[in-house]
Protein backbone atom coordinates (compact mmCIF):
# COMPACT_ATOMS: atom_id res chain seq x y z
CA UNK A 1 0.00 0.00 0.00
CA UNK A 2 1.50 3.27 -1.13
CA UNK A 3 1.57 6.13 1.32
CA UNK A 4 2.28 9.74 0.60
CA UNK A 5 2.84 10.60 4.20
CA UNK A 6 3.60 8.51 7.20
CA UNK A 7 2.58 10.17 10.39
CA UNK A 8 4.60 10.29 13.55
CA UNK A 9 2.84 9.42 16.79
CA UNK A 10 2.72 13.11 17.62
CA UNK A 11 1.19 14.03 14.26
CA UNK A 12 -1.44 11.33 14.62
CA UNK A 13 -2.29 12.73 18.02
CA UNK A 14 -2.56 16.20 16.55
CA UNK A 15 -5.00 15.01 13.95
CA UNK A 16 -7.24 13.55 16.62
CA UNK A 17 -6.84 16.01 19.48
CA UNK A 18 -5.20 19.11 18.03
CA UNK A 19 -2.28 18.78 20.47
CA UNK A 20 1.13 17.28 19.84
CA UNK A 21 2.60 14.63 22.13
CA UNK A 22 4.96 17.03 23.88
CA UNK A 23 2.28 19.63 24.38
CA UNK A 24 -0.10 17.02 25.77
CA UNK A 25 2.46 15.73 28.25
CA UNK A 26 3.44 19.19 29.43
CA UNK A 27 -0.16 20.35 29.67
CA UNK A 28 -1.34 17.44 31.80
CA UNK A 29 1.78 17.33 33.96
CA UNK A 30 1.44 20.99 34.84
CA UNK A 31 -2.31 20.58 35.30
CA UNK A 32 -1.75 17.67 37.71
CA UNK A 33 0.73 19.57 39.81
CA UNK A 34 -1.29 22.76 39.93
CA UNK A 35 -4.45 20.78 40.66
CA UNK A 36 -2.76 19.10 43.57
CA UNK A 37 -1.61 22.36 45.15
CA UNK A 38 -4.93 24.00 44.48
CA UNK A 39 -6.76 21.40 46.56
CA UNK A 40 -4.13 21.59 49.30
CA UNK A 41 -4.62 25.34 49.39
CA UNK A 42 -8.40 24.97 49.70
CA UNK A 43 -8.01 22.49 52.54
CA UNK A 44 -5.58 24.81 54.33
CA UNK A 45 -7.97 27.73 53.94
CA UNK A 46 -10.76 25.65 55.40
CA UNK A 47 -8.52 24.84 58.33
CA UNK A 48 -7.63 28.47 58.88
CA UNK A 49 -11.26 29.55 58.65
CA UNK A 50 -12.42 26.92 61.06
CA UNK A 51 -9.51 27.78 63.32
CA UNK A 52 -8.97 24.15 63.87
CA UNK A 53 -6.21 22.63 61.76
CA UNK A 54 -8.49 19.73 61.35
CA UNK A 55 -6.81 18.45 58.25
CA UNK A 56 -3.28 19.52 58.95
CA UNK A 57 -3.22 18.95 62.57
CA UNK A 58 -4.17 15.88 64.39
CA UNK A 59 -5.55 14.06 61.44
CA UNK A 60 -3.03 15.20 58.98
CA UNK A 61 -0.93 12.47 57.80
CA UNK A 62 0.51 11.68 54.48
CA UNK A 63 -2.66 9.84 53.57
CA UNK A 64 -4.33 13.04 52.46
CA UNK A 65 -1.43 13.89 50.21
CA UNK A 66 -1.25 10.35 48.88
CA UNK A 67 -4.93 10.31 48.08
CA UNK A 68 -4.68 13.66 46.33
CA UNK A 69 -1.79 12.58 44.17
CA UNK A 70 -3.60 9.38 43.29
CA UNK A 71 -6.75 11.29 42.39
CA UNK A 72 -4.93 13.75 40.15
CA UNK A 73 -3.35 10.91 38.20
CA UNK A 74 -6.58 8.93 38.02
CA UNK A 75 -8.50 11.90 36.70
CA UNK A 76 -5.82 12.44 34.07
CA UNK A 77 -6.05 8.80 32.99
CA UNK A 78 -9.80 9.01 32.71
CA UNK A 79 -9.56 12.08 30.47
CA UNK A 80 -7.52 10.11 27.96
CA UNK A 81 -10.05 7.30 27.53
CA UNK A 82 -11.73 8.06 24.21
CA UNK A 83 -12.57 5.48 21.60
CA UNK A 84 -13.72 7.62 18.61
CA UNK A 85 -16.33 5.19 17.38
CA UNK A 86 -17.99 5.83 14.04
CA UNK A 87 -21.15 7.33 15.53
CA UNK A 88 -19.22 9.56 17.93
CA UNK A 89 -18.51 13.06 16.74
CA UNK A 90 -15.44 12.95 14.60
CA UNK A 91 -15.81 9.22 13.93
CA UNK A 92 -16.37 9.55 10.22
CA UNK A 93 -13.73 12.20 9.71
CA UNK A 94 -11.06 10.03 11.32
CA UNK A 95 -12.07 7.05 9.22
CA UNK A 96 -11.72 9.08 6.02
CA UNK A 97 -8.40 10.75 6.81
CA UNK A 98 -5.25 9.41 5.11
CA UNK A 99 -3.70 6.52 6.91
CA UNK A 100 -7.02 5.25 8.19
CA UNK A 101 -6.56 2.70 10.95
CA UNK A 102 -2.79 3.07 11.10
CA UNK A 103 -3.29 6.73 12.03
CA UNK A 104 -5.67 5.62 14.78
CA UNK A 105 -3.12 3.11 16.00
CA UNK A 106 -0.40 5.73 16.11
CA UNK A 107 -2.65 8.13 17.97
CA UNK A 108 -3.49 5.49 20.56
CA UNK A 109 0.14 4.58 21.00
CA UNK A 110 1.03 8.24 21.35
CA UNK A 111 -1.63 8.56 24.02
CA UNK A 112 -0.18 5.52 25.77
CA UNK A 113 3.28 7.08 25.86
CA UNK A 114 1.74 10.34 27.06
CA UNK A 115 0.02 8.57 29.94
CA UNK A 116 3.22 6.81 30.98
CA UNK A 117 5.29 9.97 30.72
CA UNK A 118 2.82 12.06 32.69
CA UNK A 119 2.58 9.49 35.46
CA UNK A 120 6.35 9.21 35.63
CA UNK A 121 6.92 12.97 35.48
CA UNK A 122 4.34 13.93 38.09
CA UNK A 123 5.37 11.17 40.47
CA UNK A 124 9.00 11.95 39.83
CA UNK A 125 8.60 15.66 40.51
CA UNK A 126 6.74 14.97 43.75
CA UNK A 127 9.34 12.34 44.66
CA UNK A 128 12.13 14.85 44.25
CA UNK A 129 10.27 17.67 45.91
CA UNK A 130 8.94 15.69 48.86
CA UNK A 131 12.26 15.97 50.63
CA UNK A 132 12.13 19.77 50.46
CA UNK A 133 8.49 20.92 50.49
CA UNK A 134 5.74 20.32 53.03
CA UNK A 135 2.31 18.94 52.26
CA UNK A 136 3.77 16.33 49.91
CA UNK A 137 3.38 12.58 49.81
CA UNK A 138 6.21 10.58 51.19
CA UNK A 139 8.98 9.44 48.84
CA UNK A 140 7.94 5.83 49.17
CA UNK A 141 4.33 6.74 48.53
CA UNK A 142 5.22 8.55 45.31
CA UNK A 143 6.81 5.39 44.01
CA UNK A 144 3.86 3.24 45.00
CA UNK A 145 1.33 5.58 43.45
CA UNK A 146 3.44 5.73 40.30
CA UNK A 147 3.55 1.96 39.74
CA UNK A 148 -0.11 1.58 40.68
CA UNK A 149 -1.10 4.01 37.94
CA UNK A 150 1.21 2.44 35.41
CA UNK A 151 -0.56 -0.81 36.12
CA UNK A 152 -3.82 1.08 35.74
CA UNK A 153 -2.85 2.19 32.22
CA UNK A 154 -3.01 -1.42 31.09
CA UNK A 155 -6.25 -2.05 32.94
CA UNK A 156 -7.94 0.97 31.32
CA UNK A 157 -7.02 -0.47 27.92
CA UNK A 158 -8.72 -3.73 28.78
CA UNK A 159 -11.80 -1.93 30.07
CA UNK A 160 -12.20 -0.21 26.71
CA UNK A 161 -12.86 -3.62 25.13
CA UNK A 162 -16.14 -3.95 27.00
CA UNK A 163 -18.96 -3.38 24.51
CA UNK A 164 -21.56 -1.71 26.70
CA UNK A 165 -20.81 1.97 26.92
CA UNK A 166 -22.35 2.60 30.35
CA UNK A 167 -20.41 -0.25 31.96
CA UNK A 168 -17.23 0.92 30.28
CA UNK A 169 -17.50 4.47 31.57
CA UNK A 170 -18.46 3.29 35.03
CA UNK A 171 -15.45 1.01 35.29
CA UNK A 172 -13.14 3.67 33.91
CA UNK A 173 -14.22 5.94 36.74
CA UNK A 174 -14.50 3.43 39.54
CA UNK A 175 -11.47 1.26 38.99
CA UNK A 176 -8.78 3.90 39.49
CA UNK A 177 -10.60 5.13 42.57
CA UNK A 178 -10.61 1.63 44.03
CA UNK A 179 -6.96 1.22 43.20
CA UNK A 180 -6.12 4.54 44.82
CA UNK A 181 -8.05 3.75 47.97
CA UNK A 182 -6.51 0.31 48.12
CA UNK A 183 -3.00 1.59 47.65
CA UNK A 184 -3.38 4.32 50.29
CA UNK A 185 -4.60 1.75 52.80
CA UNK A 186 -1.76 -0.55 51.86
CA UNK A 187 0.81 2.21 52.30
CA UNK A 188 -0.60 2.98 55.70
CA UNK A 189 -0.60 -0.55 57.04
CA UNK A 190 2.17 -2.45 55.28
CA UNK A 191 5.12 -0.08 55.23
CA UNK A 192 7.80 -2.75 55.48
CA UNK A 193 6.44 -4.94 52.74
CA UNK A 194 5.82 -1.97 50.46
CA UNK A 195 9.02 -2.49 48.47
CA UNK A 196 7.93 -5.95 47.46
CA UNK A 197 4.49 -4.68 46.50
CA UNK A 198 6.02 -1.95 44.36
CA UNK A 199 8.22 -4.43 42.54
CA UNK A 200 5.42 -6.87 41.81
CA UNK A 201 3.12 -4.12 40.56
CA UNK A 202 5.88 -2.71 38.37
CA UNK A 203 6.47 -6.09 36.76
CA UNK A 204 2.78 -6.55 36.11
CA UNK A 205 2.60 -3.05 34.65
CA UNK A 206 5.51 -3.71 32.28
CA UNK A 207 3.82 -6.85 30.97
CA UNK A 208 0.30 -5.49 30.95
CA UNK A 209 0.87 -2.23 29.06
CA UNK A 210 2.08 -3.56 25.71
CA UNK A 211 -0.15 -6.63 25.93
CA UNK A 212 -3.31 -4.67 26.64
CA UNK A 213 -2.45 -2.17 23.92
CA UNK A 214 -2.05 -4.87 21.31
CA UNK A 215 -5.21 -6.71 22.32
CA UNK A 216 -7.23 -3.50 22.50
CA UNK A 217 -6.12 -2.33 19.07
CA UNK A 218 -6.79 -5.68 17.41
CA UNK A 219 -10.19 -5.89 19.00
CA UNK A 220 -11.04 -2.36 17.99
CA UNK A 221 -9.99 -2.83 14.39
CA UNK A 222 -12.07 -5.95 14.04
CA UNK A 223 -15.20 -4.72 15.76
CA UNK A 224 -15.35 -0.97 15.57
CA UNK A 225 -13.27 0.39 12.75
CA UNK A 226 -14.93 -0.36 9.43
CA UNK A 227 -18.12 -2.09 10.49
Amino acid at each position, binding site marked *: *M*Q*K*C*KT*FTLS*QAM*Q*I*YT*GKSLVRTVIFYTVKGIIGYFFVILVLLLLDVISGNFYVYGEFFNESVSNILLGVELSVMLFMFQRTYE*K*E*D*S*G*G*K*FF*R*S*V*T*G*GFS*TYQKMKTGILFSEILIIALVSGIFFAASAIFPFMPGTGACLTICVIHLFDVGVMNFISIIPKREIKYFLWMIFPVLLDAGSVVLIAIAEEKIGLFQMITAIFAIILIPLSQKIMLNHYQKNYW*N*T
Partner: protein
Amino acid sequence: MNHVIEIKGLTKNYKDFTLGEISAEIPCGFSTALIGANGAGKTTLIDILCGVTAKSTGETIYFEEMTDIGESRLRNRIGYCSSMNFFPADCTLKEVEISMELGFDNFDKEKFSKLCQRFKLEVPTGKKRKKLSKFSDGNKMRTYLAAVLARDTELLVLDEPASSLDPLARDILCDMFREYLSERDGERSIIFSTHNIADMENVTDYAIFMANGKIIERGFIEELKQKYILVHGDAENFQKAKPFMMSFSGNRTSFEGIALAEHAGMLKRFDTAIELPTLQQLSIGILRKAENNAEV
Protein backbone atom coordinates in the same frame (compact mmCIF):
# COMPACT_ATOMS: atom_id res chain seq x y z
CA MET B 1 -17.76 8.90 -21.47
CA ASN B 2 -15.33 8.65 -18.59
CA HIS B 3 -16.46 7.24 -15.30
CA VAL B 4 -15.11 8.68 -12.11
CA ILE B 5 -16.42 5.68 -10.15
CA GLU B 6 -17.48 2.27 -11.37
CA ILE B 7 -19.29 0.08 -8.87
CA LYS B 8 -19.66 -3.65 -9.50
CA GLY B 9 -21.72 -5.99 -7.39
CA LEU B 10 -21.40 -4.01 -4.19
CA THR B 11 -23.24 -5.31 -1.12
CA LYS B 12 -23.19 -4.62 2.60
CA ASN B 13 -24.99 -6.82 5.08
CA TYR B 14 -26.30 -5.50 8.36
CA LYS B 15 -28.54 -7.23 10.84
CA ASP B 16 -31.72 -5.55 9.68
CA PHE B 17 -30.74 -3.96 6.39
CA THR B 18 -28.97 -5.05 3.24
CA LEU B 19 -27.41 -2.72 0.74
CA GLY B 20 -27.13 -4.16 -2.70
CA GLU B 21 -26.44 -5.49 -5.08
CA ILE B 22 -25.34 -2.13 -6.43
CA SER B 23 -23.77 -1.70 -9.85
CA ALA B 24 -23.41 1.76 -11.29
CA GLU B 25 -21.19 4.11 -13.23
CA ILE B 26 -20.81 7.68 -12.08
CA PRO B 27 -20.02 9.98 -15.03
CA CYS B 28 -16.88 12.08 -14.80
CA GLY B 29 -17.08 15.87 -15.02
CA PHE B 30 -20.63 16.13 -13.75
CA SER B 31 -22.63 16.53 -10.59
CA THR B 32 -24.49 13.38 -9.57
CA ALA B 33 -27.35 13.36 -7.06
CA LEU B 34 -28.16 10.28 -5.00
CA ILE B 35 -31.86 10.62 -4.29
CA GLY B 36 -33.84 8.49 -1.89
CA ALA B 37 -35.83 8.44 1.32
CA ASN B 38 -34.21 8.14 4.73
CA GLY B 39 -33.06 4.58 5.19
CA ALA B 40 -32.70 3.92 1.46
CA GLY B 41 -29.00 3.24 1.81
CA LYS B 42 -27.51 6.49 0.51
CA THR B 43 -25.31 7.11 3.54
CA THR B 44 -24.16 3.50 3.64
CA LEU B 45 -23.20 3.64 -0.04
CA ILE B 46 -21.35 6.91 0.36
CA ASP B 47 -19.53 5.69 3.47
CA ILE B 48 -18.41 2.56 1.66
CA LEU B 49 -17.21 4.54 -1.34
CA CYS B 50 -15.09 6.73 0.94
CA GLY B 51 -13.61 3.98 3.08
CA VAL B 52 -15.54 4.82 6.23
CA THR B 53 -17.49 1.56 6.18
CA ALA B 54 -16.22 -1.77 4.85
CA LYS B 55 -18.16 -3.52 2.09
CA SER B 56 -19.28 -7.13 2.22
CA THR B 57 -18.76 -7.95 -1.44
CA GLY B 58 -18.07 -6.16 -4.70
CA GLU B 59 -15.51 -4.05 -6.43
CA THR B 60 -15.14 -0.30 -6.93
CA ILE B 61 -12.89 1.36 -9.47
CA TYR B 62 -12.01 5.04 -8.95
CA PHE B 63 -10.73 7.36 -11.69
CA GLU B 64 -10.58 4.31 -13.96
CA GLU B 65 -7.40 3.10 -12.33
CA MET B 66 -7.50 2.84 -8.52
CA THR B 67 -9.31 0.26 -6.47
CA ASP B 68 -8.07 0.45 -2.89
CA ILE B 69 -9.84 3.16 -0.90
CA GLY B 70 -7.40 2.57 1.96
CA GLU B 71 -4.61 3.98 -0.20
CA SER B 72 -3.56 7.47 0.88
CA ARG B 73 -3.06 8.63 -2.69
CA LEU B 74 -6.70 7.91 -3.48
CA ARG B 75 -7.93 9.42 -0.23
CA ASN B 76 -6.17 12.64 -1.10
CA ARG B 77 -8.06 12.85 -4.39
CA ILE B 78 -11.46 12.46 -2.78
CA GLY B 79 -13.15 15.09 -0.61
CA TYR B 80 -15.68 13.46 1.72
CA CYS B 81 -17.86 14.81 4.47
CA SER B 82 -20.89 13.57 6.34
CA SER B 83 -23.82 15.66 7.45
CA MET B 84 -23.65 15.25 11.19
CA ASN B 85 -20.90 15.01 13.77
CA PHE B 86 -18.23 15.02 11.12
CA PHE B 87 -15.61 16.75 13.26
CA PRO B 88 -15.27 16.19 17.04
CA ALA B 89 -17.70 18.36 18.94
CA ASP B 90 -15.04 19.81 21.19
CA CYS B 91 -12.99 21.01 18.23
CA THR B 92 -12.52 24.67 17.41
CA LEU B 93 -12.15 26.05 13.90
CA LYS B 94 -8.44 26.36 14.52
CA GLU B 95 -8.21 22.68 15.44
CA VAL B 96 -10.21 21.75 12.35
CA GLU B 97 -7.60 23.62 10.36
CA ILE B 98 -4.74 21.75 12.08
CA SER B 99 -6.35 18.33 11.63
CA MET B 100 -7.15 18.94 7.97
CA GLU B 101 -3.71 20.26 7.18
CA LEU B 102 -2.01 17.25 8.74
CA GLY B 103 -4.53 14.71 7.56
CA PHE B 104 -4.40 15.59 3.86
CA ASP B 105 -1.80 16.74 1.37
CA ASN B 106 -3.82 19.36 -0.43
CA PHE B 107 -5.48 21.50 2.23
CA ASP B 108 -5.18 25.26 1.73
CA LYS B 109 -5.40 27.29 4.95
CA GLU B 110 -6.07 30.55 3.17
CA LYS B 111 -8.84 29.09 1.10
CA PHE B 112 -10.37 27.67 4.26
CA SER B 113 -10.37 31.13 5.85
CA LYS B 114 -11.98 32.66 2.78
CA LEU B 115 -14.63 29.95 2.64
CA CYS B 116 -15.41 30.44 6.32
CA GLN B 117 -15.96 34.12 5.59
CA ARG B 118 -18.11 33.37 2.57
CA PHE B 119 -20.25 31.06 4.69
CA LYS B 120 -20.48 33.78 7.34
CA LEU B 121 -19.08 31.57 10.08
CA GLU B 122 -18.58 33.50 13.27
CA VAL B 123 -14.86 33.66 13.42
CA PRO B 124 -13.49 35.90 16.15
CA THR B 125 -10.62 37.56 14.36
CA GLY B 126 -7.63 35.25 14.33
CA LYS B 127 -8.64 33.32 17.39
CA LYS B 128 -11.23 30.80 16.18
CA ARG B 129 -11.79 29.58 19.74
CA LYS B 130 -15.46 28.68 19.78
CA LYS B 131 -16.12 24.94 19.99
CA LEU B 132 -18.12 23.26 17.26
CA SER B 133 -20.59 21.95 19.83
CA LYS B 134 -21.71 25.54 20.36
CA PHE B 135 -22.43 26.04 16.64
CA SER B 136 -25.90 25.68 15.20
CA ASP B 137 -26.48 22.67 12.94
CA GLY B 138 -26.33 24.93 9.92
CA ASN B 139 -23.00 26.42 10.96
CA LYS B 140 -21.55 23.01 11.72
CA MET B 141 -22.43 21.92 8.19
CA ARG B 142 -20.90 25.07 6.76
CA THR B 143 -17.70 24.31 8.65
CA TYR B 144 -17.55 20.78 7.25
CA LEU B 145 -18.17 22.07 3.74
CA ALA B 146 -15.58 24.85 4.06
CA ALA B 147 -13.03 22.29 5.25
CA VAL B 148 -13.62 19.85 2.42
CA LEU B 149 -13.84 22.55 -0.26
CA ALA B 150 -10.54 24.03 0.91
CA ARG B 151 -8.81 20.92 -0.41
CA ASP B 152 -7.73 20.51 -4.00
CA THR B 153 -9.61 17.31 -4.83
CA GLU B 154 -10.90 15.65 -7.98
CA LEU B 155 -14.06 14.20 -6.54
CA LEU B 156 -16.39 15.52 -3.87
CA VAL B 157 -18.56 12.99 -2.10
CA LEU B 158 -20.99 14.73 0.23
CA ASP B 159 -23.64 13.10 2.38
CA GLU B 160 -26.70 15.34 2.58
CA PRO B 161 -24.81 18.62 2.35
CA ALA B 162 -27.94 20.76 2.00
CA SER B 163 -30.14 19.24 4.69
CA SER B 164 -29.24 21.58 7.50
CA LEU B 165 -28.63 24.67 5.40
CA ASP B 166 -31.06 27.55 5.01
CA PRO B 167 -32.14 28.48 1.44
CA LEU B 168 -29.55 31.22 1.07
CA ALA B 169 -26.72 28.95 2.18
CA ARG B 170 -27.99 26.30 -0.24
CA ASP B 171 -27.78 28.80 -3.04
CA ILE B 172 -24.19 29.62 -2.06
CA LEU B 173 -23.47 25.89 -2.01
CA CYS B 174 -24.87 25.48 -5.52
CA ASP B 175 -22.61 28.28 -6.72
CA MET B 176 -19.65 26.60 -5.03
CA PHE B 177 -20.47 23.31 -6.76
CA ARG B 178 -20.45 25.05 -10.11
CA GLU B 179 -17.18 26.82 -9.38
CA TYR B 180 -15.63 23.56 -8.24
CA LEU B 181 -16.56 21.83 -11.48
CA SER B 182 -15.62 24.64 -13.82
CA GLU B 183 -12.18 25.19 -12.25
CA ARG B 184 -11.07 21.94 -13.87
CA ASP B 185 -13.62 21.54 -16.59
CA GLY B 186 -14.39 17.88 -17.18
CA GLU B 187 -11.86 16.57 -14.67
CA ARG B 188 -13.75 17.09 -11.47
CA SER B 189 -16.95 15.44 -10.34
CA ILE B 190 -19.37 15.72 -7.46
CA ILE B 191 -21.55 13.08 -5.83
CA PHE B 192 -24.03 14.24 -3.23
CA SER B 193 -26.99 12.63 -1.52
CA THR B 194 -30.24 14.27 -0.68
CA HIS B 195 -33.74 13.42 0.36
CA ASN B 196 -35.01 16.74 -0.95
CA ILE B 197 -33.87 17.37 -4.49
CA ALA B 198 -35.86 20.57 -4.99
CA ASP B 199 -33.09 22.80 -3.70
CA MET B 200 -30.28 21.10 -5.56
CA GLU B 201 -32.11 20.57 -8.79
CA ASN B 202 -30.19 23.16 -10.76
CA VAL B 203 -26.81 21.67 -9.93
CA THR B 204 -27.80 18.12 -10.76
CA ASP B 205 -26.64 16.65 -14.06
CA TYR B 206 -27.07 12.95 -13.35
CA ALA B 207 -29.47 11.34 -10.89
CA ILE B 208 -29.47 7.96 -9.17
CA PHE B 209 -32.61 6.97 -7.28
CA MET B 210 -32.36 4.54 -4.39
CA ALA B 211 -34.90 2.65 -2.33
CA ASN B 212 -34.52 -0.27 0.06
CA GLY B 213 -30.83 -0.55 -0.57
CA LYS B 214 -31.11 -0.80 -4.34
CA ILE B 215 -30.87 1.53 -7.30
CA ILE B 216 -34.27 1.83 -8.91
CA GLU B 217 -33.65 4.39 -11.65
CA ARG B 218 -30.80 6.43 -13.00
CA GLY B 219 -29.99 8.79 -15.87
CA PHE B 220 -28.95 12.21 -17.07
CA ILE B 221 -31.65 14.68 -16.23
CA GLU B 222 -32.49 15.52 -19.83
CA GLU B 223 -32.96 11.83 -20.61
CA LEU B 224 -35.15 11.38 -17.55
CA LYS B 225 -37.26 14.39 -18.50
CA GLN B 226 -37.87 12.85 -21.90
CA LYS B 227 -38.59 9.41 -20.52
CA TYR B 228 -41.27 10.55 -18.09
CA ILE B 229 -44.18 12.96 -18.14
CA LEU B 230 -46.20 14.74 -15.47
CA VAL B 231 -49.92 14.11 -15.81
CA HIS B 232 -52.80 16.11 -14.31
CA GLY B 233 -56.45 15.23 -14.71
CA ASP B 234 -59.93 15.30 -13.27
CA ALA B 235 -60.98 12.76 -10.71
CA GLU B 236 -63.64 11.33 -13.02
CA ASN B 237 -60.99 10.18 -15.50
CA PHE B 238 -58.75 8.72 -12.86
CA GLN B 239 -59.75 5.10 -13.22
CA LYS B 240 -59.20 5.21 -16.98
CA ALA B 241 -55.83 6.85 -16.66
CA LYS B 242 -54.62 4.69 -13.79
CA PRO B 243 -53.31 1.69 -15.75
CA PHE B 244 -50.97 3.94 -17.71
CA MET B 245 -49.57 5.77 -14.73
CA MET B 246 -46.41 4.76 -12.95
CA SER B 247 -47.45 6.41 -9.72
CA PHE B 248 -50.07 8.91 -8.73
CA SER B 249 -51.90 10.70 -5.98
CA GLY B 250 -55.50 11.78 -6.12
CA ASN B 251 -58.38 13.33 -4.27
CA ARG B 252 -62.00 14.12 -4.91
CA THR B 253 -61.36 16.73 -7.55
CA SER B 254 -58.19 15.77 -9.36
CA PHE B 255 -55.26 13.47 -9.68
CA GLU B 256 -51.63 13.95 -10.55
CA GLY B 257 -48.77 11.61 -11.22
CA ILE B 258 -45.85 10.43 -13.30
CA ALA B 259 -46.12 8.22 -16.35
CA LEU B 260 -43.81 6.98 -19.05
CA ALA B 261 -43.72 9.37 -21.97
CA GLU B 262 -44.66 6.60 -24.37
CA HIS B 263 -48.14 6.58 -22.82
CA ALA B 264 -48.67 10.28 -23.48
CA GLY B 265 -50.86 9.56 -26.48
CA MET B 266 -53.22 7.32 -24.54
CA LEU B 267 -53.33 9.63 -21.57
CA LYS B 268 -54.21 12.67 -23.67
CA ARG B 269 -57.43 10.94 -24.63
CA PHE B 270 -58.58 11.12 -21.05
CA ASP B 271 -58.61 14.89 -21.00
CA THR B 272 -55.37 15.18 -19.09
CA ALA B 273 -52.75 17.89 -19.07
CA ILE B 274 -49.28 16.62 -19.91
CA GLU B 275 -46.25 18.51 -18.67
CA LEU B 276 -42.52 18.29 -18.26
CA PRO B 277 -41.75 17.01 -14.79
CA THR B 278 -39.25 18.74 -12.56
CA LEU B 279 -36.67 16.51 -10.92
CA GLN B 280 -38.57 16.97 -7.67
CA GLN B 281 -41.82 15.68 -9.19
CA LEU B 282 -39.95 12.83 -10.87
CA SER B 283 -38.41 11.85 -7.57
CA ILE B 284 -41.79 11.74 -5.88
CA GLY B 285 -43.14 9.55 -8.66
CA ILE B 286 -40.21 7.16 -8.80
CA LEU B 287 -39.84 6.81 -5.05
CA ARG B 288 -43.55 6.40 -4.54
CA LYS B 289 -43.60 3.58 -7.06
CA ALA B 290 -40.78 1.85 -5.24
CA GLU B 291 -42.63 2.20 -1.96
CA ASN B 292 -45.75 0.68 -3.48
CA ASN B 293 -43.76 -2.19 -4.93
CA ALA B 294 -42.17 -2.85 -1.58
CA GLU B 295 -45.54 -3.04 0.12
CA VAL B 296 -46.91 -5.52 -2.36
